[in-house]
């Protein structure tokens, strides 16, 4: 490829090469160990695809720390095989102990849902409108009258996080895990883009959390 065509994708591969060399310089066995040992992360992160919320960067984590799934507006739909298969695989065989559902301020999905809710019901006609339909429904249940836009978005973002945590707690992998005494907690977090800080909104622990059998 000519110099003029040096592009973002090539840039990424070059950055990866530099990163890999740096890692090997500090720990020559890091990658070999990572490849031979199976992964043992304790955390599953279900977050938004937004480029400003990279799970491992904002938590200063290492490769191997966080099993990750991201989608538009950090949704957990009970009928979605994609996120359900991630959760199922994460609980068993990977064996995570914490599921963190992470929303964030200034979420484009939440903004779209607020606009869509103002327009009245439409038949979802493409993947994105179908995907956001449950969030639009949630927006309709909230009282956003008189709120400035950013406060309305914040309110939707928080309600969304709580709703998705609820969905996760009702899912088969979590219901089964809790019924069989597995110690898996579900957390709802909000990441504030303007400050870079995560705040925990809600945490749900297994019913047997305090019992000695867990």
């Amino acid at each position: 490829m000519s110099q003029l065509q040096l592009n973002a994708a090539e840039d990424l591969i070059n950055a990866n090469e530099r990163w890999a060399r740096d890692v090997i310089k500090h720990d020559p066995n890091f990658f070999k160990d990572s490849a031979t040992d199976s992964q043992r992360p304790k955390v599953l992160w279900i977050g938004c695809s937004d480029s400003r919320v990279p799970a491992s960067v904002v938590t200063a984590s290492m490769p191997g720390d966080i099993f990750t799934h991201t989608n538009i507006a950090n949704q957990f739909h009970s009928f979605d095989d994609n996120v359900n298969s991630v959760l199922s695989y994460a609980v068993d065989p990977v064996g995570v102990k914490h599921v963190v559902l992470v929303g964030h301020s200034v979420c484009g999905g939440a903004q779209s849902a607020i606009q869509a809710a103002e327009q009245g019901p439409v038949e979802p006609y493409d993947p994105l409108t179908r995907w956001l339909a449950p969030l639009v429904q949630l927006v309709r249940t909230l009282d956003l009258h008189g709120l400035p836009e950013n406060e309305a978005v914040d309110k939707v973002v928080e309600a969304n996080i709580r709703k998705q945590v609820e969905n996760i707690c009702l899912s088969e992998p979590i219901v089964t895990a809790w019924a069989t005494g597995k110690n898996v907690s579900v957390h709802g977090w909000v990441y504030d883009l303007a400050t870079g800080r995560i705040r925990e909104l809600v945490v749900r622990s297994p019913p047997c959390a305090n019992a000695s059998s867990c």
Partner: protein
Amino acid sequence: MLRATYIRGPTIFRSLFVLPSLRFPPLRNMSHRPIQTLLNANEEWAQSVVKDTPDFFARSATCQNPKILWIGCSDSRVPESIITASKPGDIFVHRNVANQFHLHDDSALSVLSFAVKEIGVEHVVLVGHTNCGGAMACIEAAKVAATNPSTSTPLTRWLSPLTALVRSLDLSACSANEALNKVVEANIIKQVDNICKSEPITTAWADPLAKKVTVHGWMYDLAEGRIKELVVRDSQA
């Protein structure tokens, strides 16, 4: 404390990718740290970013303009932003089990649609990796007869296209390792194919006025920490 510093583009952004033995008390294993430690690490990271670039977060909150959509595996060993030394704002991300792109999956389709049409990414990178647990599971599943649909679970349904792909490959002369690598590579090529058939990409490629978007198939080698490009497709190809 030893820290690795990554310099990309005009902005210096210090990644807190540091070796666990040097960052925390020697006996703490990063992969077992509790949730509170993640929150503490986030606080430390945020403070260090502000010290380095005081207006980073304020600017980041106004809009995102990533050039890349990364569709990869949920595997914890392949965190896209760490392995490419990227900073918040660089990469729009969708990760799932075995880096699938199913043409009937609203989750991945809505990400691709939003990324191409609203965000305006220029590259879609589909990234598979060695030692993929999803691929291993499909190799095992392919050895037995197809399961009864009434006993299917989200995970078996999710992996059934990959299991079908495995059945279409001749792995008879392969060692276990060779078979896994062959499946991982075939999977990457197949998912790139799917992406190129999707509505957001076919529409973008058919429209001479649309922003140029290129689709790449990448393989991340866990044992070396390196990404290799296997295939690249654009509107010309």
